[in-house]
């Protein structure tokens, strides 16, 4: 029952080193870029003076200096991106064609394995269920809520409540919902809200998270709970951006709220809706924390990201883990390209 604060000191020391490194790198870079050009400028001035004295034409090197500035401004970013993303991504792709110890080439074996093995096929199916349901339900809920609450008196407070789960970690959310799904035997009082409701309605309490395929849907509820707030905020902003005169004109024409929604609101917020759906889809494809915390991928709830972690970091199957990562990349690719093209169009339009 005692907490030794002194034992924590090395961490603060390390944090301090980190901050010192930050100041040194960023400050040093800016200082370097300030001092060195100033030095060259002085030398150039001296050269100019000398040149004008001897009557020779002055040397011009302005262009080159711009390039040097750009290089140093970009240096840290490029360094980190190359080491941390570009090279690893290429290597992962290569590893996916090699065996578990990454020594022999095995061709497409790892990809064949993904579709042959029943348990892995199950993982792919689960991921498909996730990515079909979460964006749809979360966006629909977000949209309905944004419309309902638009211009209400308590709008910002109500929106905050829906938006709040965005701040909660997936791990925290998984624990919150595990508590709701908690199970106690027939004869005991239930402590989980869901089972209590079931019992009150005269049903039998259930071990919700052990029951496949229902458990996957119960995990999906967690993701929807988190993502709906995001959908609601973006869509609400889009609804507010609809020009007031359009709405006024429609109102004068006597449109019903129903018509207003389908003929005015929906077409106007279509771009935002697409952004929301695609963004949530990408996040859902990569979902890891929820499944790992709630069931650890047991009872047929596994998805690609958790299985990738298991293969690569628990079973030491680097080839198979990498193949799953590449597969994830291939799934995300069209979505992100679509997203980017969309954002560009929006910006230009």
């Amino acid at each position: 029952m005692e907490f030794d604060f002194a034992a924590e000191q090395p961490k603060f020391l390390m944090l301090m080193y980190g901050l010192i490194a930050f100041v040194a790198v960023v400050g040093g870079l800016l200082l370097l870029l300030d001092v060195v050009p100033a030095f060259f400028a002085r030398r150039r001035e001296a050269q100019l003076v000398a040149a004008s004295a001897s009557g020779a034409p002055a040397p011009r090197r302005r262009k080159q200096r711009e390039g040097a500035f750009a290089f140093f401004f970009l240096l840290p970013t490029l360094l980190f991106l190359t080491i941390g993303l570009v090279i690893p991504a290429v290597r992962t792709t290569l590893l996916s064609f090699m065996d578990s110890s990454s020594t022999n080439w095995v061709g497409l074996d790892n990809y064949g394995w993904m579709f042959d093995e029943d348990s892995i096929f199950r993982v792919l199916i689960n991921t498909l269920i996730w990515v079909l349901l979460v964006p749809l339900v979360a966006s629909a809920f977000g949209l309905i809520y944004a419309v309902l609450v638009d211009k209400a008196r308590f709008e910002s407070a109500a929106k905050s409540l829906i938006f709040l789960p965005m701040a909660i970690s997936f791990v925290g959310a998984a624990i919150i919902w595990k508590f709701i799904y908690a199970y106690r035997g027939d004869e005991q009082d239930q402590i989980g809200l869901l089972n209590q409701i079931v019992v009150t309605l005269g049903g039998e309490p259930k071990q919700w998270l052990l029951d496949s395929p229902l458990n996957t849907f119960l995990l999906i509820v967690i993701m929807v709970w988190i993502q709906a707030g995001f959908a609601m905020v973006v869509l609400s902003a889009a609804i507010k951006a609809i020009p007031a005169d359009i709405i006024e004109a429609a109102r004068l024409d006597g449109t019903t709220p129903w018509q207003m929604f389908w003929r005015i609101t929906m077409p106007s917020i279509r771009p935002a809706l697409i952004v929301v759906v695609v963004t949530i889809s990408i996040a859902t494809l990569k979902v890891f924390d929820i499944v790992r915390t709630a069931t650890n991928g047991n009872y047929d709830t596994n998805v690609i990201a958790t299985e990738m972690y298991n293969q690569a970091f628990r079973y030491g199957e680097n080839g198979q883990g990498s193949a799953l990562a590449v597969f994830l990349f291939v799934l995300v690719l069209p979505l992100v390209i679509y997203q980017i093209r969309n954002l560009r169009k929006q910006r230009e339009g």
Partner: protein
Amino acid sequence: MTTASPTVGAGVQPPAPLTRAARVRKRLNSRTATLVSIVLALLWTIPTFGLFISSFRPEDQIKTTGWWTFFSDPQFTLQNYQDVLFSTGSSGQLASYFINSLAITIPSVLFPIAFASLAAYALAWINFKGRDWLYIGIFALQIVPLQMALVPLLRFFSTGVTLGGVQLLPAWDLVDEQKFAQVWFAHTCFALPFAVYLLHNFISQLPGDLMEAARVDGATHPKIFRTIVLPLITPALAAIGIFQFLWVWNDLLVALIFAGGGDETAPLTVRLAELAGTRGNEWQRLTAGAFVSIVVPLLVFLSLQRYFVRGLLAGSVKG
């Protein structure tokens, strides 16, 4: 689009003068909407609320009765927090992990933002060859899911870089709290494409006249960056700072792989996921523990919500 055809549906009805009945119906409609939205908001809050209430209930109460009995039989204790934060051993010690979370998060927010703002400035306002291609390249890196980088990056830390049998870079060989550096490094890499993209959006929209005037006055790029650009993009920096803060604080995957599971480096999320796995029935610890991990992002979020929303709206692709 479809709104351009007023003859169908909408045009058929005569412009309705608001009769008494219509007014009543309208008010009723908006009242129903209000009611529904309140109910939904409460529904959305109940899970968190239940956890919050439970974390203050004594152990035997949590384990035998539902949290809703708190209202008929209120019993209040701080023992759960005391236990989960400060008891040593396998049952808690979350205070230690809380410090880890802090030590991981602060540099992981500062580094990418500083690097990204430098890069975004160069990509927006310095003329050099291949600038557009470089920007597109960094932008495109957003599509790489971080899962693609995990195995090789871990190997980079643990064995260094060898090319054709020649050791180019040594292994990092970090122990205990030094492993924070790995996590900072990984988070910085993964955050950069999105951060550069977002900040480039802001920086490139600054008025060009401002830069030109400064250049005429003889200011160099570092000076313009420090004295003109940085103060102007503070809101953007705040937005992306909150974004990155929540992302790092709430992250499980990166921490799991690069920080290890010990109390020297693992953040709260790793510890909680572990507790949920091994002590899934110790609800007195799980509820209090979950709330400990939630409280900081919640405070940040509630106090800086405006900036966060702005960041969300400015760009919604996170790699």
